[in-house]
């Protein structure tokens, strides 16, 4: 396609404007090798339509700002190449299950509230030594794939349960709960399991794997949820036996 162009069909909506209906607007963007969806959005906003709203910051798939629905699947605009998507129309939509502020920008408030619920901070089991707490490389490896979460919100938007149960903690919060459960330095496992064991917690997951498919960092929230379930059951048994 080199030197060609692509049509973007972008979701537009300003809920604050009375009577304004959500719509899609089309833009023609010149394509070169290496052009990302985020580059294209800047092209539109800076050269074609200054009213377009979207979020962006690091442009290197580390900050999670530019999560959106791109050409049929969720992704980060900054790490999605345009060329492989073909000439379009390439449809861009905001994250689902969250209130829209304008165009591609959603209110992440409800997402952060759920994250806050899992008490996302280390609760050390023992007082801190003078130097570092030691942790074997194998124990540290258990955190790989959990600490990489950039809290972009994609998994929770891709999750079908999130559409029917507003209170469902969702894959991102649950994956982060598992991050602390897996950490040998943490001493609050019981409490953490209690938090995720509720009706809007791990048992809500229908294991459809949408989150795992959608995660732009290749993480596996479903796997984390399954691990939490197994851990909960193991702890219940332990209590019975005791």
């Amino acid at each position, binding site marked *: 396609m080199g030197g060609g162009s692509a049509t973007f069909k972008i979701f537009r909506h*300003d809920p*604050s404007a009375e009577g304004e209906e959500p719509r899609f607007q089309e833009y023609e963007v010149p394509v070169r090798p*290496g052009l*990302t969806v985020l580059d294209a959005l800047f092209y539109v*906003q*800076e*050269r074609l339509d*200054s*009213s*377009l*709203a*979207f*979020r*962006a*910051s*690091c*442009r*290197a*798939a*580390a*900050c*999670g*700002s530019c999560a959106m629905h791109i050409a049929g699947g969720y992704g980060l605009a900054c*790490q999605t190449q345009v060329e492989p998507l073909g000439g379009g129309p390439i449809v861009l939509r905001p994250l689902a299950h969250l209130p829209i*502020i*304008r*165009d591609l*920008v959603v209110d*992440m408030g409800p997402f952060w509230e759920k994250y*806050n619920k899992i*008490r*996302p*901070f*280390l609760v*050390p089991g023992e007082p*801190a030594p*003078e*130097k*570092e*707490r*030691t*942790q*074997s*490389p194998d*124990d*540290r490896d258990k*955190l*790989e794939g959990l*600490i*990489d979460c*950039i*809290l972009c919100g994609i998994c929770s938007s891709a999750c079908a349960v999130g559409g029917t149960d507003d209170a469902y903690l969702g894959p991102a919060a649950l994956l982060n709960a598992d991050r*602390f459960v897996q*950490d040998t*330095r*943490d001493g609050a496992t019981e409490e953490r399991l209690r938090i995720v064991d509720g009706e809007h917690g791990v048992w809500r997951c229908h294991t459809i794997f949408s989150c795992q498919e959608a995660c732009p960092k*290749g993480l596996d929230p479903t796997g984390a949820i399954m691990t939490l379930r197994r851990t909960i059951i193991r702890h219940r048994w332990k209590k019975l036996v005791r």
Partner: protein
Amino acid sequence: MRSHDVLIVGGGLAGLRAAVELNKANVKVGLISKVHPLRSHSVAAQGGINASLGNHPRGDYDTAMRHAFDTVKGSDFLADQPAVVRMAKDAPLRVFEIEHWGCPFSRTDEGKIAQRPFGGAGFPRTCYASDKTGLAMMHTLFEQMIRYQQAAERQELVVYSEWLVIGLAVDGDLCAGAVAMNIKTGEVDGFRAEAVLFATGGAGRIYGNSTNAIINSGMGMAVPYRAGVPLKDMEFVQFHPTTLCGSNILISEAARGEGGYLLNKDGHRFLADYPDSKKAMEVAPRDIVARNMAREILAGRAVEGTHFWLDLRHLGEEKIQKQLPGIRDLAIRFAGIDPADRPVPVQPGQHYTMGGIDVDRSGASPLKGLFAAGEAACVSVHGANRLGGNSLLDTIVFGAITGEAMAEFIAGHVRPASADKALAEAAARGREAVERLLGGGGAEDPVSIKDEMKKTMMEKVGIFRDRADLSAALAKIRELKDRYRRVGVSFKGKILNQELRSTIELGGSLDVAEAVVAGALAREESRGSHSRTDFPKRDDAGWLKHTLAALAPEGPRLSYRDVELGYFEPAERVY
């Protein structure tokens, strides 16, 4: 008007660390960030953070003083030595502390924090969390903030996400608060505080090719600069040798620390051909490697005249996946190249702002009540060239020091009655400025001004500089500043008006760019990252001093301050 004891501008590592410190001291904190804190640039830091822990088998004899020496030498002796010594001494303490808070560092076989070699360091002292150290540290500090917010007995800690600070309120010789615009609504409000911290990060995006987040416009430096606070050593701009060709996404120095090779178009490790890098090779400091790459480009030995190969293949897929998974992922996604199979095309790009808001060792600026920390500040611990792994350290060491200093400052401070009036006036001026941009129909297009600025900085204020280029650049930036006065925005909406926001920030970028060029033109020597082809030697007799740029109506007014020595004698810098 919103009111807090202390206002922190910036939710990156420096801002968050200061917030935690202030909260420990039971101070009411408001924290403003133009993006959600976790979207700050700091999350993109990859390679690691320096501390002389001696956890590496080759690190046994490392000490804080050796760390300090390497830092001073790396800075080409422009860093203030007492500040560097303090940073190096605090380093283990701060690293252990963030580990205690949960930072998931990689581990040695004995379970200690793992360390790797980094450029310019005598020992492997860079602690890391694979190659996502910034993300790991940011999450840890953000988690601590949530911990404080959820602890009932603690004082308030309010986060204002997506607010852009556009002005400062000054009452005589005192900072009386700040003025910010809510990006989501367009509302402009005054933020009353006894002390204000600027932890607003670097200004990389005044350049075309930068590894920095798109949001690093320099606006955070421009706000205090316009309020009369000098910017220090702005001419010192770090270029990183290995950024992905085209997008300039960083390929961390860890790639070279782990043993990667840099090759020219003939497949030759060209660093062997230059006296200042032939011994350390790929782990020579950044300024030296970047300069020798620029020389290869000039000599026609770069690939297609633009880039080089970073070859990791000999490390083997397993080591690449284990130690550099993030880099592998970036190379695959953004360049379509798996470094396990093929060399990665890299080129130098703007990376770090050594200069910044003039502050002393406690983070205090000359304006009473105004503090700065992190990349936005210049203490100075990085001098003319920052060593890899030292700026994450800078953020948490000086974030903590400054937080403590602010708590002390407000304890002994009585806010004069006049301060609120000054703040109300500043807020009114802020509102007017925004209304003017929205209302007036200036004919100048902000996007072309921005593009021309970035191009000018890249072409004329880059790795090699000379008088002709710098004079031309200064004239150009002034022309752009003049055009900026007639700028207009076409979209008039208040909710998430990206054009409005970036146009406001562009004004700040231009002021900062001008300070960089003016400092570079005046400094007639070569030191660290500042290489004047017309003055190729370091000149300690004339230039062992910091540049201070104060904003005057005609532009930056320069003055100078001696470097604080006291530990190490300036010597020639070879590796």
